[in-house]
Structures are given as C-alpha cells and as structure tokens.
C-alpha cells in the first residue's frame, strides 16, 4: 500500500469507475426497472480508493489538496461519488449510479493527464482570492454537471414515454416535470456561482498585479461559457423553451465545458504559467 502513490490510487479508482460505466450500459438497456447493488458496490469500492488518493496527497502537502487542476478535479469528483454513495442508501435511487459512472470515468481520465498536475507560484493575496475563485467556479461547474445528469435522465425518460411506452411504465426514473425543474434550478445556481466566481477571479488577477499583453484563452473561454448559460436561462424564462430543447441545451453546454476545460487551462498563461 505504502509503495503506491496517490495518483496510482486514483488511477485504480478510475478503472473501477470505468467498470461501473460498462455495467451502466446494461442498466440503460433494461430501463432502470430495479435497484442495482452491483453498480453501487463498484462506486463504493472506487470511492474508497479515491479517498485514499486524496488523503495521501493532502498529508504529503500538509494542506487541503485543491491547488491545481488535477487536485481540483479529483476533489469535485470525490464530492459526486460520495454524494451518490449516500443517496444510494435508498435502494430506489441506486440506479443514479448509471448516470454518475460515465461522468466520474470521463472526468477521471481527463484529470489523470500529466499536464494538469503542476504547481505554480502564487503570492499570498492572490492565493486567497484565487482559492475563493477556484472554489466558486468549481461549484458552478458541479451545478452544471448536475444539470447535465438531470438532462440525461430527462431525455432518457422522455424518449421512453414517447417511444418505448412499456419501459416508461416500469422505470424508476423520477417524473420528467421534476427533472425539468431540477435542470432549471441547477443551471440557475451554477450561473450565479459562475458569475460571482468570475468576478472574484477578476479581483484575484488585480491583486496579483500581473499584466498580460494578449487576451487570455481561459478568460475568453469563461466569458463564452457564462454567455452560453445566460442565453440558456433567458430562452427558458422569457420564451418558455420546451423541456426537451432545454435538456439538450444543458447537456450540450456541459459537454462543451468537459471537452474544452482542460485545453483552455493549458492554453491559459494565467492558469497554467
């Protein structure tokens, strides 16, 4: 055990998340008719390894391990996995693992990219504001992640209710109206957190007294994400966008974040000096 690094433990956890993702495919095919213990146990085992990885990193640094993209990502993923393990104590809700597994696996693979686990120099003031900025923005992405999970559930349930009526009648998924509400609320919460987080980020940049000649890739990317979610909310509130379009938009927006988050960080001189 002592010979393995924290990254090895996290790698093992990601492998288990991968196995549970494969198993999820079976649950998707069956239409979530029954609670499922296997997926719950897989994620529980992965969470154990994930926790060991976080603890080893934290003890080696003698502080909370949220100092770079790798640490921030595994911290956020740990929160999702731990939430699922608690929620999964209710047998009826264990099927949620089929939605959490792909997210945990995909984000876990990205977190393991070597470039994300780098330490950059920071001043004390910038570190404080920077930590607040990182925490708020990560929480915002967490909320957007939840909205995408709810959107995925909505689209699955809506598809069944229209086209696979037998499966719809026996599914354990919540009513689509409740899922639609969950998408809307998590997008709204995420948008508020992102707005505050970006404002704090601007203060942090001001505190560091650093000037950059060219516009930063991550700043432009953040503005695009912020604008995309603003449009999403305006369309929803002002123009009563239909549930299905809203779900697709929430899912697409988060997919954009997942696919471009790391590259925008690597291109950013502020976030990846």
């Amino acid at each position: 055990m002592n010979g393995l690094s924290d990254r090895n433990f996290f790698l093992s956890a990601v492998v288990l998340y991968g196995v549970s993702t494969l198993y999820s495919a079976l649950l998707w095919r069956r239409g979530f008719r029954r609670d499922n213990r296997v997926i719950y146990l897989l994620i529980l085992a992965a969470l154990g390894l994930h926790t060991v990885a976080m603890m080893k990193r934290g003890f080696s640094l003698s502080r909370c391990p949220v100092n770079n993209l790798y640490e921030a990502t595994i911290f956020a993923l740990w929160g999702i996995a731990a939430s699922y393990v608690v929620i999964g104590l209710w047998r009826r809700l264990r099927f949620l693992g089929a939605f959490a597994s792909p997210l945990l696996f995909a984000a876990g693979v990205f977190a393991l990219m070597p470039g994300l686990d780098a330490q950059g120099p920071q001043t004390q003031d910038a570190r404080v504001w920077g930590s607040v900025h990182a925490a708020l923005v990560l929480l915002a992405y967490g909320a957007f992640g939840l909205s995408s999970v709810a959107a995925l559930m909505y689209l699955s349930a809506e598809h069944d209710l229209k086209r696979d009526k037998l499966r719809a009648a026996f599914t354990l998924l919540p009513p689509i109206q409740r899922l639609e509400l969950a998408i809307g609320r998590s997008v709204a919460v995420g948008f508020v957190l992102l707005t505050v987080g970006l404002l704090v980020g601007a203060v942090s940049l001001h505190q560091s007294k650093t000037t950059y000649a060219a516009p930063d890739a991550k700043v432009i990317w953040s503005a695009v994400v912020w604008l995309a979610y603003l449009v999403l909310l305006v369309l929803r509130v002002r123009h009563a966008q239909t549930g299905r379009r809203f779900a697709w938009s929430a899912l697409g927006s988060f997919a954009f974040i997942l696919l471009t988050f790391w590259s925008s960080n690597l291109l950013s001189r502020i976030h990846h000096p």
Partner: protein
Amino acid sequence: MPVVVVGLSHRTASVAVRERLAFAQDAIPPALQRLRETGLATEAVILSTCNRVELYAATDREPAAALEALRRFLLETRALAEPLTTELYACGEPESLEHLFRVASGLDSMVLGETEILGQMKKAYEVALQAGHTGRLLNKAFQRAFNVAKHIRTHTSIQRGNVSVSSVAVDLAEHIFASLAERTVMVIGAGEMSEKTARSLLSRGARGIVVTNRSVERAAALATELGGRAVPFDQWAAEFAQLDIIISSTSAPGYVLDCARLEPLLKLRRHQPLLLIDIAVPRDIDPEVNLLDDVFLYNIDDLQMIAADALRQRQEEIARCEAIIREKIRGILAPAAPGASPDPKLAYGA
C-alpha cells in the same frame, strides 16, 4: 394445538354466495365470543371482505372434527341452510398457515399482488386482539404473516406495475407530472372507461375535472358525479390552456384532435407537458401528435399492453413468493414439532 382455517373466497364461490356469508363489522366480535364460549376454538380471527370470508382458529380438538364443527358454526351463524360443499374450503397445519401467508401477500387475491387485503387482514386481527380472542398461536401466525407479506413486497416484484387500464393511465401521469395535485383533467365523451380513469386520477389528487360530450345532459350528469363541471362540446378548446390531462372516448368516426388543431393550443400552455389518453375505438386522437414536443399520447392498445406486461411480471414472481412462504413455514414448524407429520389438507366436498 393447530391453527386451522375454514372459509370461502372469490376462487370458490360466486358473489351471490359470498355476500350471504359475509359478516358486517359489528357482527364479528359477538361471533368470536360465541365461538370461544362454545369451546370450538381457543383463539379465533374472522376475516370478512368482499372477496373472502375466512375463520382462522386455534383449537385443541382433533383437526378433522374441529374443521367440521367450525364449518357448521359458520353456516349456522350466517343462517345458511345449504351445506356449501363445493364452495367452502378447510385445512389444518401446515396448509392453513401457508394459506394465511398467501392471502396476506396478495397471492390469493383477485388482483394478483394487491395490497388492500393486507390492510383488511390487519384490521380483522386487530378486532380479535382488542377483544381478547387471540393468544400465543394466532398472534404468532398473524405477526409472521404480516412480516412475510412485507418481505415479499420488498424482495419480489409481485406488486410492481398496474394491472388495470385506468391504473396504468394514472401511473403514466405520475411519470410525467411532479404531482397530480394541481392537474386539471378533461374527459371528452362520457364512456365508462374514461369515467373510471378520471375517478382514478381524482383519487390520486387531481384538482379538477371538466367533462364535454355531444350530449350536454350526459356531460352534465357525469360532471356532477365526478364533482367537476361540464362544457359544450364545440367549446372545449377554450379550456385548453388550463388542461394537463385529456381522456378521450367519443364514438366520432374521425380524429377529434390532430396536429393542426393541437399545435396552436400548445403555445397557450407555455410548453407544459400534456398527457393524452385515447380510449376510443376508432381512435379520437391522431397518433402524429405524439411527435409534438411536450405531448404524450397513449391509446387503448398501449395501456392494455402495459397492464398485460405487469400481470405477466407478477405471475412470473409467484414461484419466488411461494418459495419464500414455504421457507418461512418451515421456520415456524421446525422447532415446534420436529419429525411430526402435519395433518393432510381436509377439503370438504372438493
């Protein structure tokens, strides 16, 4: 001292016979009292529902004689002259316990796996318990029966899904709407099936009912019965903005509702979900409307297919339930009488 059962149910007797043997609630305690005073039983519970009348008793008499005496008691108490040789069943342990567990689990019910019987059984037991007509044997037997029923409900799919068309419609509504409490239902055409479905939705909390029919009198009568209001048939579209569920069962030869008519109305609802239940044959609603966003259409075939599948799933679970019951029975009997052979089933006239 064995636990025995004598009675009849929907499986053995018609409603005409069942209603004559049924006990009114206030007639049960005196009957139990008389049963114990005559020495026929040391403990007794009478279960009387619309589908069964059963007398569970613990007796220190020889089982065959006790069952015959209990059978006579049941007929005399209800003043029945006929012997009911084919309708009445009677059995001693272990069949009596197995029967008790099957009844509590809904395996012997008309609607396989239904849960109402468990509540009725608990009530019957409570009546006997309060009056002091139960003791160690029946207390143990009934408590075990309730536990087994709970275990079966938790560990098998015997109660999953709905097996009637109206319940399936309600179930689908609950998969669409977060709550039925604020939903308004419109019934187009006043058929029996649409009335049943509307009643089921109301019983699950639907807020209001609007009835429309070509015959204004029929619409008004049904609206009064359901506690809703009637609107003229040519004006039902004016109500559309506030409707969430439409049940249609007219005898119109063509579609009452199609995309061209529905699309402009959907905008009035700001894209809230709309559930359409088409029970009519020929169909009232163009199947193409199911392709519209936020519209969910189910016709009679869809509902019957879902109900049939639920029934099939429940039937597939019977073997699992019975295995659980047999295991629990072995658990009860093993410490009491190891090696003792149970009394064979004693059926009267069967």
